[in-house]
């Protein structure tokens, strides 16, 4: 089965694409990808505080994708499942936006949506307390720690998540997650 993956990744926005990746992530690929993002940011005239937030959120987002994307069979001509994901960095009039995409099992959607809704519902101080609670109370695995990455991204960005789930085949969905960082 051939899949038009671009229809899933596509983001509606008016602005400039600064960086875009789609494919399978490996540890070495992450290193190259983060170097490319840093090179791009270095070329830009950008406030150092905003620069650091963008880079940090890219690091955390890419590693979230690495640890949590499910494998999927995308292309009939390649007879294997891949851990497909996408990450895009945009610049609009007001924001820098980081949009990630990955496949998830439909049964996971309520859990993910609840986590995001909790984060979106917190004030800055509540988010700080929630971060410290997860940091001190939960056991971490080699995969990460209890959704701490998403909490910290929201703290650093100081904005709410925008997200969607688009149905795919065989009880899977494409999960798109956007976070905006104010330009100043």
């Amino acid at each position: 089965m051939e899949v038009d993956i671009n229809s899933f990744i596509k983001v509606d926005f008016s602005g400039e694409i600064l960086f875009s990746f789609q494919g399978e992530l490996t540890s070495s690929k992450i290193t190259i990808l983060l170097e490319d993002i840093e090179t791009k940011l270095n070329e830009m005239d950008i406030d150092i505080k905003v620069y650091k937030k963008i880079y940090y959120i890219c690091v955390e987002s890419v590693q979230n994708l690495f640890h949590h994307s499910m494998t999927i069979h995308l292309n009939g001509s390649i007879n294997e499942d891949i851990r497909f994901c996408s990450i895009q960095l945009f610049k609009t009039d007001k924001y820098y936006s980081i949009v990630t995409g990955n496949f998830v099992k439909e049964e996971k959607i309520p859990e993910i949506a609840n986590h995001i809704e909790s984060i979106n519902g917190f004030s800055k101080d509540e988010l700080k307390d929630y971060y410290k609670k997860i940091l001190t109370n939960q056991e971490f695995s080699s995969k990460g720690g209890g959704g701490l990455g998403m909490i910290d991204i929201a703290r650093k960005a100081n904005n709410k998540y925008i997200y969607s789930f688009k149905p795919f085949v065989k009880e899977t969905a494409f999960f798109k997650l956007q976070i905006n960082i104010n330009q100043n």
Partner: protein
Amino acid sequence: MEPIKIEGTPKTPTVHFDATTGLVEIKGRSIPENSIEFYKSLIDWLDSYLTTPAKLTTVDIQLEYFNTSSSKCILDVFKKLEAIYKSGHEVIINWYYEEDDEDMLEAGEDYQSIIKIPFKMCEIEE
């Protein structure tokens, strides 16, 4: 005890632990995919060190970036140091952050509120 000296990489920090001088230093970037693997040897070293620590342990943390996977490992490092402090030995944590890097200052303050060791927030001028 043999000191630990690890050179930094784009994803892992420079580390210098020395039991003779009581120096515990972590600098650079800590953004590996699997932080538990990287920090394991540091935690093991501190487990040995806390049996016979120096009179004063000086902890210098100067991180440009650290991911949430590292945040728990850094907390584990601080918990070992807290045990040394609670056993009556002097420990001071110097948390360095670049001028205007409010996020890194706030990250230090988060640890300061969790760990009962004297923290000193040290601003580095760019």
